[in-house]
């Protein structure tokens, strides 16, 4: 979002060095920054993976215990329906457990699980059109403590979140996924490329397309 003209109408002659005028993510400001899904890899964690591969259920549960909630929220952000998010997360867990013996490199467990989960989200999203479940949409009520002006020059131009969410829901699942990974999970393009198994260039372009598509969807929503 553009800042107001007055805030930036200055000359910055010769200023080619990178500057660090960066806003903190709004998510952090309103206290909903997602917990990182994957904890740092520690030697003990690799051991847990090895034990899980040998059929140690307790080890597997310890591996995924703190993963479940953020994974569920990621799925919810992508899919928009609680039931779908439940299914996708459960499916991913079950699949990971059933196939953990196929995981050759314990150090890759987190990325492996993350990809399983996103693929489960994709599958859940595809089947939405074939289910009979009807979910009543819940309109958003802003949190009382949510600041009206999140960033200078931004709040007054912010799209209505309800409209924005409806527009977001109209995007193709791959576009929703990259937006969630990038703008909510705060993952880099490199990380997204790794977890989706897609070249970085594709991710970059998909992010670009996703923003453009979201803008158009919002326009469509307002027509």
């Amino acid at each position, binding site marked *: 979002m553009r800042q107001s003209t007055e805030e930036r109408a200055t000359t910055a002659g010769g200023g080619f060095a990178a500057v660090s005028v960066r806003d903190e993510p709004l998510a952090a400001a309103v206290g909903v920054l997602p917990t990182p899904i994957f904890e740092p890899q520690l030697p003990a964690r690799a051991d847990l993976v090895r034990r899980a591969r040998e059929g140690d259920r307790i080890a597997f549960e310890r591996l995924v215990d703190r993963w479940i909630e953020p994974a569920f929220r990621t799925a919810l952000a992508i899919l928009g329906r609680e039931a779908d998010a439940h299914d996708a997360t459960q499916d991913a867990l079950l699949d990971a457990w059933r196939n953990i013996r196929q995981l050759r490199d314990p150090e890759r467990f987190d990325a492996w699980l993350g990809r399983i989960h996103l693929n489960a989200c994709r599958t859940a999203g595809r089947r939405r059109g074939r289910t009979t479940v009807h979910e009543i949409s819940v309109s958003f009520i802003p949190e009382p403590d949510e600041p009206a002006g999140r960033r200078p020059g931004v709040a007054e131009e912010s799209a209505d979140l309800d409209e924005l969410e409806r527009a977001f829901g109209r995007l193709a699942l791959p576009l929703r996924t990259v937006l969630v990974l990038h703008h909510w999970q705060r993952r880099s393009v490199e990380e997204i490329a790794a977890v989706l198994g897609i070249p970085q260039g594709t991710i970059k372009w998909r*992010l670009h397309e996703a923003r453009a598509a979201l803008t158009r969807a919002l326009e469509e929503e307002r027509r």
Partner: protein
Amino acid sequence: MSTHVVISDAALEAMLARRANRADPGSLHDDAFARLDATEPRRHLLAWPVSVARGGWSARQVVLVAAAMLLLAAAVSGALIGARLLDQARPVPFDTPPQNLNDTTPVAPFRLGPRALAPTGIEVLVSVPGWYTHLVADGEGIAWLREDTGAIVRFDPLTHTRQSWSVADDVAFGSTEQVIPARSGGVWLVGQRALWWFDGEGIRDAVETPADLPAGSGGNLAVAAEAPDGTLWAVTRDGAVLHREGASWSRRTAPPGSGACAQSDASCFPSAIAVDRAGRPWIGWSVYPDPPGAPARVSRYDGTGWITLEDPLGRNEVLSISEQTDGSMLVDLDDGFARLDGSSWTEVPADFDPGRCTSDAPDPDGTVRCVGPGTRPDSVRVFRFDGRTWVPDVEGRGLPADAPATVVAARAGSYVAVVEGSPVIYQLAGDRWEPAWEVTPPAVPRPRIPGDGRPLLAISRDELWAIGQDGGIWHFSGGAWTMEAIDPAHPGSKVWDVALAPDGTAWAAGEDGVAYWRDGRWVVIDTEPANVVTLDRDGTAWVNRTGSACDLWTLRSNGTTWVPTPLPACPRNLPLRPGFLNGIAVDDRGALWVGAGGYGGAVARWAEGRWATNDASDGVPNNAGVEVLGISAAGDVWIGFRPPDHGANEYARFDGTEWKVADPPGGDLVLDPDGSLWAATDRGPAHYDGQKWTFPYPSVSSPTRVLLTVAPDGTVFALGTSTDFMATSIWRFPAPAP
């Protein structure tokens, strides 16, 4: 007209955070772990288990013995050729090398140089323009626009004449993603791998990108511009900078350390380009705000090296660059404007909301115009950049003031404008913006077809069924679309699947049950909601009811009524929940094949009173989520599946003895009713005749990548989306040349 960022990062993040925190996981922990209790990690098996238990034998032994028996049987009689069941496999020796399923025929290159338009024979059945994505003025003051449907429009503001060209007229119009003015009149249409110079009559030049660019989308063109000397500059999505002089391309990619975004830089992508009068390309690089501190930047190539200027205010996106009369460059960023003179970066204030300006359409002389508030509450004013500042230009009422707009100066001092989200071309007449051209809504309603891969069913060249955005089922027949609810009393009920019976009858499954189409109406044979339907050669309908996790039934006619019969419970290791049933087919021996999506997905076969599921690691992963399943005329079972550790679909064929993983040239896979295969690819429909892949139609990049359907008469239809994934259309391809 480029897409401006009208949705702030803050709003997007807030929306996603709200969406993600709307519900709590609740009992998810317990539920998930309880499900783990019921299973164990799988051990690797080496082959598909046969359906008859043979105590004491390993799976591999079982298959080897079965194969030996089959080989013996084949030697005795050729009658088994064509047998397709697992345990009556065709006499294919196990050591037969798998066919090379990746053979492709080369795509015919574009004919270079001037040529007349070459009609493709492709017809657009559904195409309702919503708005214009690009507006530029060429050197003669003619306005050129691109509809969101992909059509290219030429609008003469003096005569108010409008011409448009679609994919039916030439492949160029089915593949254009950008429109840039050509210096000698007309426009360059920029596709993924080619550029076409179009003057309204013919293709004056056609240029393909270098053949050695990466095959993926990273090798596709992102931005392009024509230099004053007539050479072309282009940048691929991966950041390769290309320069075409004469008939050859050369690369001028900025090396690492130059400050420009290198091809390996994951946070950068090219988003704008301009070539100044000295022939130097200026490339705008946009960034994603991760890692922090990497701002958008502009790079200039001076013939020997690169100079890179970073935005000192740390913004993310360069939307356009245009040269001014004094040789400086005006840069439109996502949050304002800057002026670059080669050694300094100067902010340019504006008395209007920069967010409404889409200035990637400078006039041929480089003048950039934006719209802003007028002096009256109901008017909109055009601002012109004079090389130093924005100065007020013309003003008028009648232009919507709530969306980004593009305005260009056209012939004889006229002004033409379009507004995002509107299918209207405006022209300034005195002090009013008048609609100079407006798309007339179709007299007969047309479906809005989503691009999410809902089933499409082709009956013949002139008859098609499609499921619309709202879940209703639409019928294309006699050149017109009509909505045909299964139960006319419930016009809003949803349909989830359509299928073709061997006799050519259309079947549908949805909220109002299962029905077939006869004499202009749906005949309901079962009122239970069902989400999948398929027909076997005997006319039996196989359906999955949606009332429980896995609820497969057959519906058989006894001559007077349809008798529903439940199948035994699904195999425990097959997660056949509603919606996970992504493929169901019956082979000519009466065996039911089921493809289950999701994780833990599998292929299952119901025959002789029992289920068998794949549990092998010989090509099809144990947990492959099956997304497509079909049986070819030769009896091969084909599946498209998504392995858990791979981002792209893979395909496998079961020929009666084993699975062979194939790699079609991308896209969703469909079975032709004649048993051959089709794949929807970025280059158009690809056909597999059992030996090799061919591309029988002109290479068009959009929208054929999404979904195909093939009628029994061989007509190929493609359902797709535009590059912004919003507008959809259905293309009907001509019959391929014999």
